[in-house]
């Protein structure tokens, strides 16, 4: 392992490092709101909460907020005036990001920064640094391994902190990450530390629950199978208990559908972008009143198809990172892992 992209951070120096971040940047990270652990903007170091599992919401909220002002407008006698929101000058740090969430950003990058460039996302993305933290004890709902990630994966992170006791082993995943090593809070990593780190990784991976997914893999095979199963009765079977709410999509680190609307007061107003969900009937209802996805069956199928068939095809990344939020938070525990399992066991009819 090449020493210039691996360092050590003594836990006593963590605050010094954070001070630096707070000095130069707007910091987002895991923090308590009531009895809830949220990933949100943080004003002071003391508000950061580590080692309490993953946050209720995903980190996408920081770069792709649920409600975003695109511009204000006014219809006057000389046509319409536009007022753009003033862009944030300061840099941004997302601290304490779980590897799964970090990996999720890679997909958002493709969606908002690929063929179609979204200025609002790109602007924030260009200013943001992702500092991840490894999962020492994953939740029973986690399945990141099945999606090419892992409790200590650096995918999508500029820096990744791995807790090895009194120190963090800090891996840099990108040049942006390496740049942080300029700060004198870091020390060089020794082999012992590296060994400890890989042990943490091993332990974490072993502790992961593989039962729910079983042998089912996520990849080309699933992609092909899904194409065949589009009209299969399985969709009706697996969605019978679905309530049709937006929990799964709104908490998902990769779901990125949105709606754009104007809110007007007399001749002035604002144009906003808000999250939308493929699970809502309005998502596809047409002006005529006709809805090509009239029920949960079609909507849920779209969600699965999009994640494991269309996105892999178009962006060659799945729309899932195995964070398990949709599994734990679904009001009826409709488990995406079990659905994938059922599909992979299903003989195409």
């Amino acid at each position: 392992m090449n020493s210039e992209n691996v360092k050590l951070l003594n836990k006593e120096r963590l605050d010094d490092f954070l001070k630096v971040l707070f000095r130069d940047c707007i910091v987002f990270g895991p923090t308590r709101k009531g009895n809830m652990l949220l990933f949100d903007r943080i004003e002071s170091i003391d508000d950061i909460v580590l080692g309490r599992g993953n946050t209720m919401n995903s980190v996408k909220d920081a770069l792709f907020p649920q409600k975003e002002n695109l511009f204000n407008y006014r219809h006057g006698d000389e046509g319409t005036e536009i007022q753009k929101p003033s862009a944030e000058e300061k840099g941004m740090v997302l601290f304490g990001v779980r590897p799964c969430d970090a990996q999720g950003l890679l997909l958002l990058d493709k969606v908002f920064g690929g063929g179609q460039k979204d200025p609002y996302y790109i602007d924030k993305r260009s200013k943001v640094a992702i500092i991840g933290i490894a999962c020492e004890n994953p939740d029973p709902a986690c399945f990141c391994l099945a999606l090419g990630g892992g409790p200590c994966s650096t995918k999508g992170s500029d820096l990744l902190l791995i807790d090895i006791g009194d120190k963090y082993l800090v891996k840099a995943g990108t040049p942006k990450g390496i740049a942080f090593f300029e700060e004198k809070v870091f020390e060089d990593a020794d082999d012992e530390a590296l060994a400890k780190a890989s042990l943490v990784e091993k332990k974490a991976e072993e502790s992961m629950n593989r039962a729910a997914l079983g042998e089912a893999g996520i990849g080309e095979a699933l992609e092909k199978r899904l194409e065949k199963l589009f009209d299969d009765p399985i969709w009706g079977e697996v969605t019978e208990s679905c309530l049709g709410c937006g929990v799964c999509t709104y908490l998902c680190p990769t779901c990125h559908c949105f709606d754009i609307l104007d809110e007007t007061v007399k001749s002035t107003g604002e144009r906003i972008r808000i999250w939308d969900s493929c699970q809502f009937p309005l998502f596809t209802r047409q002006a005529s009143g006709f809805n090509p996805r009239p029920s949960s069956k079609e909507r849920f199928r779209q969600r699965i198809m999009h994640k494991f068939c269309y996105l892999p095809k178009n962006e060659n990344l799945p729309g899932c990172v195995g964070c398990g939020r949709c599994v734990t938070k679904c009001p009826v525990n409709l488990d995406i892992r079990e659905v994938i399992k059922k599909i992979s066991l299903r003989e195409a009819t």
Partner: protein
Amino acid sequence: MSQLIHEIKEAARDFLRDGEDRTVIGFEQGSLPLQSRPCFIRKENDLERLVWNGFCKNNLAGYLPKRKGKIAIVVKGCDSRALVELIKENQITRDQLVIIGVACNGMIDRNKIEADMDGESIVDVEEGEDVLTIKGTNSSKVFDRKEYLYDHCKVCTNPVPVIHDILLGQRDSNTPQAPVNDTFSDLEDFSALDGKERWKYFTEEMNKCIRCYACRNACPMCYCPECFVDASRPQWVGKSTDLSDTMIFHLMRAFHLAGRCVGCGACEQACPMGVDIRKLNRRLQKDVMDLFHYKAGCNLEEKTPLATFRTDDSDSFMVEP
């Protein structure tokens, strides 16, 4: 417990054997500890999936509106009250239903338990009469069952189903068999606060809301073909997470449930953000009781209060110059 599960399975079996086009709606073990979930059974050999435990929280009545065919449904006290209202509102007919009532000892609030696990994730649970033994990744803890019930279970006044074809489960002598009136003592402290403080509270709560509509979709009484919040021309409520819009969504939803809310807590269970939605419904339940002497879901004859009136209803809230 196992005896009870057996009885539920037998009741369901008899029902399935009775004829064609029949569905049993009950609970099965979920994919995670502390989770049971709805299941739909049509074949006798699937009956083994049926479970009954302290995590059968969902209100299965929500699956009934406009459903065809014969249905056997497993209900707790609160679920049965929802059935009563749904039958009154023509969403399902009594003769479609075989109601397997289970006297309920309250359902356990997963979030409360998780909050007290110090971030340790839960791998297994053992449910006793009065205690729960929760195994975490590297330790195990014992919880007092009563302490960790859902708030709405703690104030439940009739855990025994009000209508049923079969009634199962132990009822410890002090659980009332028939509906009794609610004291709403849980509202006293909050109502005592002054308006500004109450507004502050609701502001904080509603700011958590992400407008995923899990509350609405989990609610057995929210069966409108189109919810007002999805309507256009006029679009009464904005769709963003703007505080005012969110507040009005919840206010209006609560109002639409006035005299209909059976207090099953499905909304709060479904909410991923832990918004205290019931605070609104509880108040309306109280007012409906105080003003119109009506408790939702208690009998099939009484008209729901906003579908009727009395000429001597109170005027006291009106301006008298």
